[in-house]
């Protein structure tokens, strides 16, 4: 993978693994190799940081538009199914 310096091929290798790196899904050895490359490659660090911000913004997107309120009929149907479950669960 690469050490230190901005080189097209190395950057591409690192680039392909950045999400897994952020998600801590890589082996310690691969992480160390990536970090060794990042240490000398400001563009890759900058890119990594922008990807991190993107993921954080996505996390903030939970919620968003809301459905219309549940109608009494819809709630009744769901409640009936739940009651059936509770009855069979206790029986």
């Amino acid at each position, binding site marked *: 993978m690469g050490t230190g310096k*901005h080189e*097209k091929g190395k*950057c*591409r290798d690192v*680039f*392909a693994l*950045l*999400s*897994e790196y952020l*998600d801590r*899904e890589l082996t310690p050895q691969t992480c160390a190799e990536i970090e060794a490359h990042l240490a000398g*490659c*400001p*563009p*890759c660090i*900058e*890119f990594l*940081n*922008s*990807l991190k*911000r*993107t*993921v954080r*913004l*996505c*996390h*903030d*997107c*939970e*919620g*968003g*538009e*809301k*459905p*219309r309120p*549940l109608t009494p009929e*819809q*709630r009744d*149907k*769901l*409640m009936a*199914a*739940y009651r*059936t*479950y*509770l009855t*069979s*669960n*206790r029986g």
Partner: protein
Amino acid sequence: MAASDTRDEVALARDLIAGEPGAFDRFVEVFRSKIFHYAQTVCGRREDAEEVAQDTLLKVFSNFGQLREPERVKAWVFRIARNECLMRRRKSVFAPTQELSLDDFLPHQDQDDGRRLEIADWSALPDDQALREELKEVVHAAIGKLPEIYRAVMTLRDIEELSTEETADVLDISVEAVKTRLHRARLSVRQKLEEYMKGARAGGRR
């Protein structure tokens, strides 16, 4: 954030199993909103998403006895929601599936000197609430434009914060496919945000 949310959802599932007063309405409130959001992202239409939310919850309550591990409640609910979405596939939204290529997002593939990269200044991302809301809109729009296979993965992993394994289970795909699709989806959304920020700066926004 994600860990405490997950604990809340698991606690909610346990309360529901125990028949605790109030658990039903809390569960419906929390999960209806999540299912609606997922379905709207995947199906595209508000009416479909509301229908998916109702039908999913009906199946959830009817089959609650099949939930063996309350710890997995969220993945279990989303798996049912995913099937409900599949039943409502609309050609206009689901086809054709276009693969995103990693190379399309490489910022410096044609440059020898990476230090001249044109990456927008992300360190200046606003703390200002109004601008954050604006960027969230950009993210929503960017996710909405992704091909369906990427949209679903990104919604489950980065918005609902399911694990890679849970997402693979919900979508019936391999863990490797989740990782590949998630990375490409993130790169695509990142690119849209970057374009937006460059445009905002060029327009004298900040």
